[in-house]
């Protein structure tokens, strides 16, 4: 895949709109670093078997923006995206849950792990444990990193101001 990922294949465009909860964990998984996902996968009490519906692959996705958040849409540029789709094995019929992983960058294993956890998190049996043991800590770590960065930037903040003159 060396062209732009068609819109129809992005997870948001799939017929079933993902729930807010799923959006939340997919975002946390995509922003996590691979090492913590790998550790969480290793620490699972039982790792399910799985197969690739779509082999992990690297491609480009067009990032679009709006000037000021409200203006005309414009193409900001393309970014590298790794994606994977897996189906975990459940039961003898093999009809397991399908998980999607879309991750910025070129880390195929990260995309695969994100897809695996996405599949597990859709399963009611695994969700409470994984949310508590994986997603919440990931979100906290991300929030801390972000807060630390904001503090570092705030230290060098310069306040610009303009005197408002009356018209007289």
């Amino acid at each position, binding site marked *: 895949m060396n062209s732009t990922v*068609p819109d*129809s*294949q992005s997870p948001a465009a*799939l017929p*079933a709109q993902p729930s807010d909860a799923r959006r939340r964990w997919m975002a946390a998984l995509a922003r996590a670093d691979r090492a913590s996902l790998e550790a969480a996968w290793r620490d699972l009490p039982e790792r399910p078997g799985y197969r*690739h*519906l*779509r*082999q992990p692959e690297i491609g480009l996705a067009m990032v679009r923006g709006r000037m000021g958040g409200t203006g005309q849409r414009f193409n900001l540029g393309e970014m590298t995206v790794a994606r994977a789709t897996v*189906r975990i094995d459940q039961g003898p019929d093999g009809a397991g849950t399908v998980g999607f992983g879309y991750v910025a960058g070129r880390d195929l294993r990260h995309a695969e792990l994100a897809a695996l956890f996405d599949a597990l998190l859709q399963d009611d049996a695994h969700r409470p444990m994984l949310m508590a043991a994986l997603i919440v800590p990931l979100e906290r770590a991300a929030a801390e990193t972000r807060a630390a960065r904001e503090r570092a930037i705030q230290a060098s903040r310069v306040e610009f101001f303009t005197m408002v003159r009356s018209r007289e």
Partner: protein
Amino acid sequence: MNDQLSPGFADPVGAAQATFRAVLTALSEPGKLLELELTLEPPAPLGLAAAAIALSLLDGDTPLWCDPASRNAMPSLRFHTGAPLVEAPERARFALIADPALLPSLAAFDAGSDEYPDRSATLIIEVAALGPSATGGTELVLRGPGIPERRSLAVRGLPAGFPAEWQANHARFPRGVDVILTAGGRLAGLPRSTLIEEL
């Protein structure tokens, strides 16, 4: 919907190239029986060859028409290729037919224009059997470019009116549709330049 997804090629580049090569050979040597040797779990009800051709040739720019019988395979094909589905046969670039008995008239599909005959539809028709195993089928005797003298191809499962439809399609040359017949892992090409002489 997720339960219906079937896996794509395990080796997307290699498998798509092998399939493309087979399609090229099939259309340049019409009626020649080819066998795809791939491991692929095709989405029901498609056979291996039909699924491999669809996965190799379809993308977001190729509107796809499918007959009611092959509708169950659409979630998988849409997921892997992103091809848009169209309801009107004449708007499709590719058509998938899993039940040839209900094949619409070939004239219903886009035959291209005299300026751009290449912008025509390609039909992938899954028949019951092709080649030596097609006992009880029809023996098509083919003549035309890419065929030294005559070539015969045994097909089971094509509707009785197909040869007549085909002559009309052939007569529109350079316009017309191209057909790829598939049965399981086998395929044979029937480009518009080929003439069917029924035995």
